[in-house]
């Protein structure tokens, strides 16, 4: 099993929580709150943190990017990946991932990624995502063509990496008269490609058809099982049995020396409502971004999008804050979306998670809220020294192989043609 270290690398300090809640959005907070010198210190701290993660023995460093939001300071993760490619020696650099539909120039992306792979000595794991709706808005990428552009950029990049150039590429959205990059990945035929996501069924199917692992980003156990089942069913249609090598899961974890301290960190994670206020619905779900089915499911949950009610709806910021830091926090803890504790109390819960969803890759995600540097480093150290060795033991017992240990598609389907379960619902119920 591969263990990844991940953090959103937020802009911390001096952020007006009430203002974020009043707007119901981290995205689009005016950048007059941004201090470049302070931001520069943070960016370097975050890079140092990733280097420290490698020293501690994490197998992989996972990076992401967001735009126009203090939620994640890294707007161009390839820059960060390039720095880490040179500063680190053995950890995999996993991108979760490049938002293909919004980058505008996928041929340049193929070159950037090739350079990261070259500088790192073949440690890049490339990840393709659609980008949230906010990324689409920020980059003025037409949401009506989001998935078309993802598919086409994917095709172009793979061809640029594998097909001898020069050749011409005439797509619907991308047109290149001369594809012949003079930087190519050192991993052949190309770096591993993973598909990170938060439950768009089309992306799960895309991953299974292409034999790419699907990495669920803190999606909660029940939804994750649904995604795994969809993947396994698609894999069966493609003639193979899915296994742990097909699945990665990112879990939010805060570890401290005492329960009380861990609890304190966990509560900070709810700063500003966290993901609930990542972006307003009109930015998160621009037209065409979601399929009709996904929209329908959401509409039933959010009637205010459907009815003639004045926007913004009326609410009191203080009430919202009380809710985030009270019942919402408790719910996140109960559902295990958020795990906080000491190594002793965390290990059995993570083991249970591993028995339920059997991931080949497990990412630890921490630090969305205003959590201090020392607390972050302590959490990382406790995870690496006390938690991870125990989990690796469990992974061996459960046979959880990652996609670099076992190639996707190698497992034959049972003769019945019906795939074996890829997750344990019984364990979830227990």
């Amino acid at each position, binding site marked *: 099993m591969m263990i990844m270290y991940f953090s959103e690398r937020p802009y911390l300090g001096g952020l007006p929580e009430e203002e974020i809640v009043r707007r119901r959005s981290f995205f689009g907070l005016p950048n007059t709150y941004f201090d470049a010198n302070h931001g520069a210190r943070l960016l370097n701290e975050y890079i140092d943190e990733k280097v420290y993660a490698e020293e501690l023995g994490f197998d992989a460093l996972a990076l992401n990017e967001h735009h126009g939001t203090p939620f994640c300071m890294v707007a161009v993760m390839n820059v960060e990946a390039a720095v880490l490619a040179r500063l680190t020696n053995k950890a995999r650099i996993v991108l979760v991932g490049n938002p293909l539909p919004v980058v505008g120039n996928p041929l340049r992306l193929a070159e950037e990624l090739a350079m990261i792979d070259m500088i790192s000595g073949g440690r890049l794991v490339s990840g393709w995502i659609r980008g949230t709706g906010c990324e689409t808005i920020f980059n003025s990428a*037409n*949401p*009506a063509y989001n998935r078309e552009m993802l598919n086409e950029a994917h095709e172009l990049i793979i061809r640029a990496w594998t097909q001898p150039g020069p050749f011409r590429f005439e797509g619907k959205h991308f047109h290149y008269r001369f594809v012949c990059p003079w930087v190519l990945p050192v991993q052949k035929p190309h770096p591993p490609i993973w598909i990170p996501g938060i439950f768009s069924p089309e992306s799960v199917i895309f991953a299974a058809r292409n034999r790419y692992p699907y990495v669920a980003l803190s999606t909660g156990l029940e939804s994750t099982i649904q995604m795994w089942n969809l993947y396994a069913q698609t894999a069966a249609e493609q003639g193979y049995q899915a296994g742990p090598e097909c699945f990665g899961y990112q879990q939010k974890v805060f570890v401290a020396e005492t329960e009380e301290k861990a609890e304190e960190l966990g509560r900070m994670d709810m700063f500003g409502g966290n993901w609930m206020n990542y972006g307003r*619905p009109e930015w998160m779900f621009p*037209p065409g971004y979601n399929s009709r089915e996904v929209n*329908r499911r959401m509409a039933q949950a959010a009637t205010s999008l*459907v009815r003639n009610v004045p*926007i913004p709806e009326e609410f009191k910021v203080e009430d919202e804050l009380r809710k985030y830091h009270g019942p919402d926090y408790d719910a996140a803890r109960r559902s295990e979306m958020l795990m906080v504790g000491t190594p002793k109390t965390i290990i059995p819960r993570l083991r249970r998670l591993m028995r339920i969803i059997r991931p080949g890759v497990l990412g630890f995600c921490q630090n969305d809220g205003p959590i201090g540097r020392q607390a972050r480093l302590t959490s990382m150290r406790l995870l690496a020294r006390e938690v991870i060795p125990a989990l690796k033991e469990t992974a061996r017992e459960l046979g959880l192989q990652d996609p670099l240990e076992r190639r996707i598609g190698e497992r034959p389907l049972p003769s019945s043609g019906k795939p074996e379960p890829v997750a344990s619902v019984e364990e979830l119920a227990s």
Partner: protein
Amino acid sequence: MENTPTSAAGREWVEDRIRVGDLDLEIVRGGSGRPLLVLHEELGYPGWMRWQTALVRDRTLLIPMHPGFGRTARLDWITSVRDLSAFYGRVLRENRLAPLDVIGFSLGGWIAAEMAVDNPAQFRRMILVGAAGVRPPQGEIFDLYNVTVNAYLRASVADPESTPEFDRLFAADDPLQRMEAWEEARIQTARLAWKPYMYNPSLPHLLQGVRGLPTELIWGSEDRVVPLSAARAYQGAIAGSQLRIIAAAGHRPEIENPAQFVNLVRQFLD
């Protein structure tokens, strides 16, 4: 035109369709008399309102649902308002409808203006109401994609409370269906007008070549969607066009002040 209209008793309009190539173009048709082509806005066809009831006494209203809006299927190759205007040119030719009067609202006004550039002779008289298509010299066209549909609709009138038919913009037997229709409209508008948003930089230049087409521009004085400066830009580009401003109205003068709106339309067309 196929002769299979469907109509509920007492309605002033029927649903009909026109075959164009492989596509069934859905159309709402009502009234009798000289035809008036109505080109709808970016959120789709908002439905039958008082102004239509007033006009159908002596006009035949032809209201096509643009490809990708309402019940008309999408055509994958239509990716710009120029494509769409050329498509409508074919509709008029094949159905021997030209020359006819046209009125276009917002996005529909832009379509009409592009059609006039293609072939001014396909129109007898042209009315543009709060038309998109030209970059406003002052201000910006209100971004449909930066707000919810609710907020966009509220911004489209000067005062929702004093606009009697405002609630009818939301009328639906099934709110989910209503939302999906808006969603489809917003997707199709994104295909047509995402970037640059809601205008064509070449349009004002090309409009200078349109001669001999009587044109009226109707704008609400308080239009927050397409600023009045765009109306003046249209007026400067189209020779002989006249601008009529409806006081205290926003982007939907046809429902904000239907009496004055209908008077202006009648005076200009008759």
